[in-house]
């Protein structure tokens, strides 16, 4: 496996467009198709937004977001790390069918992002690495 790209940006919403450009670049190198590229960008965007809003801003913290992409013959692995509050998306309750069929008038707004992450990438996992949160996204190639 080889590291193809890294990117470090401030943990603020202004960084979301740079993160999106980065994801599109590595997806192009990995030869993902348009749909897979969109889904990976969506998943990374959702997690980056959670890091920025929950991990940093709401916790009264500031810090960077570190992205790294690794490529091998069968898959593209993208990792995002941050030093914000401990935030494990895996612990967020998976949205149940009853929620997804609720009308918008009665909906709570939380949980949609993580739901989209899990629905968009081939594999997703969270781990704690020292003082960092690490979110890992995997897309299979040659689909």
């Amino acid at each position, binding site marked *: 496996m080889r590291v193809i790209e890294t990117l470090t940006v401030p943990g603020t*919403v*202004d960084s*979301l*467009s740079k993160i*999106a450009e980065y994801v599109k670049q590595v997806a192009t190198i990995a030869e993902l198709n348009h*749909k897979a590229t*969109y*889904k990976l*960008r*969506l998943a990374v*965007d*959702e997690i980056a*937004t959670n890091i*920025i*809003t929950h991990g940093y801003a709401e916790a009264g913290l500031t810090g960077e977001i570190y992205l790294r992409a690794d490529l091998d013959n069968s898959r593209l692995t993208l990792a995002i790390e941050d030093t914000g509050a401990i935030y494990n998306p895996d612990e967020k309750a998976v949205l149940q069918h009853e*929620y*997804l*069929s*609720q*009308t*918008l*008038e009665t*909906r709570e*707004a939380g949980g*949609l*992002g993580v*739901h*989209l992450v899990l*629905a968009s990438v081939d594999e997703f996992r969270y781990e704690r690495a020292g003082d960092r949160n690490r979110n890992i996204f995997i897309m299979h190639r040659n689909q």
Partner: protein
Amino acid sequence: MAFTAISEINDDIAKITLSGELDASTAPIFKEEVESIAGQDISKLVLLTEDLEYMSSAGLRVLIFSKQKMGADVQLYVVSPQEMVLDTLEKTGFHHSVTIVDEYAAVAR
């Protein structure tokens, strides 16, 4: 691509034309536009999304906000969403609450 949200009210129909990329950094622009028309006496809110290239859950949250702000009597339409935006609406069950149509003429009927 830069995000824009432009609103227009004709009789009891409010239209907002969305274009570009709707994420957490641009969703406040969309939300402001919704707030600007929330006090008006309208029966339909129509989102023209043909040129909306990307939408994250930040956009979905503005849809929830719109529906809750305007009340159950205001019908929400999404016109001509691109394939992946439609995919997101369906995966999150929003297609149960929002009417998705191919062209604006279907709303005006």
